[in-house]
């Protein structure tokens, strides 16, 4: 088991410009201890039975056949073309918090590192991975060369302005040609109802939905005690308030917002992870991956 001191902290990762290197560091930190790929076998098709051999995964024993025949047979699957994944990365202005001079790592940088690590991991398993972020779309393909190109595209992106999460979920979902894995990294400040509608539509198309809600500790707790003129990073609208006086109502509203996403994601069968940017990316993704392995 990897100890807490073995995972690279976010502020260190923030100093590394090479996204491929960062992704490798993160993946090495999270896959050690994982005995099986969390993505393996997902897209396999049944091909034939064979006699059970000791050590076979009991999950693949056809118990109905055992009841009928008194013989133990293990299902074998033909691996089809690898699983296709699409990473949807929110590049809206709100992901640029905290601004560069106030914190070592913005939410966007954290999400980009997590997206790179996921792409690295998926590609390393031989699966196809694509990317949709900003104005860039990289179709899902397998292979190391493709991964390099995807990471290069990822490095070219930045957070700023408005960017519709719902709209881009729809685009990514439509472009996944077969049932695949849709990984969305966002703060989900977009239109909640529309975003959920698009996620449900994507689920109806057969995609597995994985949501990573990425927030900073400051925007969850509002730990400021003075007059501040809060300026919206996407619209530029400003509101001058006293943070101490606004803290209680803010944290209540934020807690309700997070509870809505957590509850409805669970009700719809989406995997949901709330990631706070002061958590090392490897640790945050590990929890997600362990949950998948355990399924």
């Amino acid at each position: 088991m990897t100890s807490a001191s073995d995972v690279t902290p976010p502020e260190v990762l923030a100093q590394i410009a090479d996204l491929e290197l960062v992704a490798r560091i993160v993946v090495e930190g999270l896959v050690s201890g994982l005995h099986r790929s969390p993505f393996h076998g997902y897209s396999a098709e049944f091909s034939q039975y064979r006699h059970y051999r000791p050590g076979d995964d009991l999950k693949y024993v056809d118990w109905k056949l055992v009841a009928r025949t008194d013989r133990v047979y293990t299902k074998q699957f033909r691996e089809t073309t690898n699983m296709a994944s699409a990473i949807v990365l929110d590049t809206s202005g709100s992901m640029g918090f905290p601004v560069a001079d106030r914190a070592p790592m913005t939410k966007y940088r954290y999400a980009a590192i997590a997206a790179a690590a996921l792409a690295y991991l998926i590609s390393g398993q031989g699966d196809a991975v694509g990317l949709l972020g900003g104005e860039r779309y990289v179709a899902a393909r397998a292979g190391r060369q493709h991964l390099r190109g995807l990471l290069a595209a990822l490095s070219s992106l930045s957070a700023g302005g408005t960017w519709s999460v719902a709209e881009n979920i729809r685009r990514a979902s439509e472009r996944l040609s077969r049932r695949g894995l849709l990984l969305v990294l966002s703060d989900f400040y977009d239109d909640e109802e529309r975003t959920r509608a698009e996620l449900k539509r994507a689920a109806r198309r057969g995609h597995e939905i994985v949501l990573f809600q990425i927030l900073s500790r400051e925007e969850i707790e509002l730990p400021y005690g003075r007059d501040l003129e809060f300026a919206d990073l996407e619209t530029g609208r400003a509101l001058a308030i006293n943070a101490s006086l606004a803290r209680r109502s803010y944290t209540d509203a934020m807690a309700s917002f997070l509870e809505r996403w957590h509850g409805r994601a669970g009700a719809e069968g989406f995997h949901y992870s709330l990631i706070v940017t002061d958590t090392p990316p490897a640790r945050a993704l590990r929890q997600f991956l362990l949950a998948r392995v355990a399924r």
Partner: protein
Amino acid sequence: MFWVNPLALFAVAAAAAPVLIHILIQRRAERFPFPTLRFLQPTRLASIRRHVLEDAPLLVVRAAILSVAALALAGPLLLTASRREAWDRRLVRAIVVDGDSAAAVPDRDGEQRTVLMQRQFAGPSLADGIRRAVLWLETTPPARRAIVIVSPLPIGSITHSDVAAVPTGIGLRFQRIGTLPSARTAEGGRLLTSDRVRSREVTLTGERTSFRDTDADAVPVWPIDVVSADHDREVIDAAIAAVRSRDVWVAPPDRRARLVLVAPADRGDGAERKDSTADASPIQRPWIADAIARMTRDPDLRAVAIRFKAGLSDRRFAVSPWQALAIAADGRPLAAAAESADRLLVASAAGASSLATPVLLRSIANAIASPPDLRRAEVMPINDEVIRQWSRLPAPVGSPRIDTVEQDDRRWLWLAVLVLLALETWMRRAQPTAVERRAEEHARVA
């Protein structure tokens, strides 16, 4: 309330400056980029008002320190009844003596007040001493003020004008000391007669005045040059002889005069006589100014001028540096005077044969001479009734001259400043406790 240094009151306005700056400066909230405003509820900007409310008492105390210090610098003087009574109970006294009474000490004459200050003034005359005493009394601290004149008080030693020149708030008391001699003889000056110079000796015996003239060992010199037409020389000489026959005072040898008879131009030589007045200049020598003053007071000259039909027609004689001596019937000067090369210059519209000319000559001759001053020879005292009329009590202190007040009330204000400073120190030291409590509260919330 009076102020010794009223300009310092402007410093009170300076105390308002930090208050105004403190209140008027709007502290802008720091701009803080944030992901979304959807969860933020509008609140009041508490820090500015809270800061003002928290600091207000301290600010008031600090402003009060500056204001009270400025008031103290301004030197307040509160004129209370007790202060006025204290001033009225004391006396500042000037003692004026003449040369004969230099060692005199005035008697109390029933004076009940405490003499705060006293100074003696002795001089060539009582009038001079009174004038200097008045100037000194104006610089003394607030108190009743009085002048005591100690002298035998002969006639002429003080006149009505000398008394009138003393401000009415200053008391006057006359103390007659010593006795005047029954008779006194004094030099009475020198006279220029028709053919010689005579010395006069004046004897004052009680109310009687007598004199004795003796020949003086001096060359008679007529001090006036007359500029007129050549054909008027005989008439002029006759006029001079007539004036000398009536005796005129002898002028000092360095005093000369020139009389120019400015006749009408139809005489043909008017231009030449006008040249004799061209060098007129403003009067600078005191004896010339004194001479002109005497001539303007000469009743004989005034009487003859008013009967003269036409004065000097040239407008030049009506303006500086010319001074009118006497006015003719037409309103223009019969004669005007100026200075010219250290002598008295007189221009006259009267002709050589006019009665005004010898009157003018006599007036000039007596004016430039130094008539004898027989006041010190006087043997008759000033009448007691006159002394009683002149005497008066010192008036109560009115509005004092601020610069003469020995002690104002600033010391109380400085004491208040010290108290306020102590209060400000205590308030300032008590403040961090509240700040620390707020810091702890912020830490718990975070």
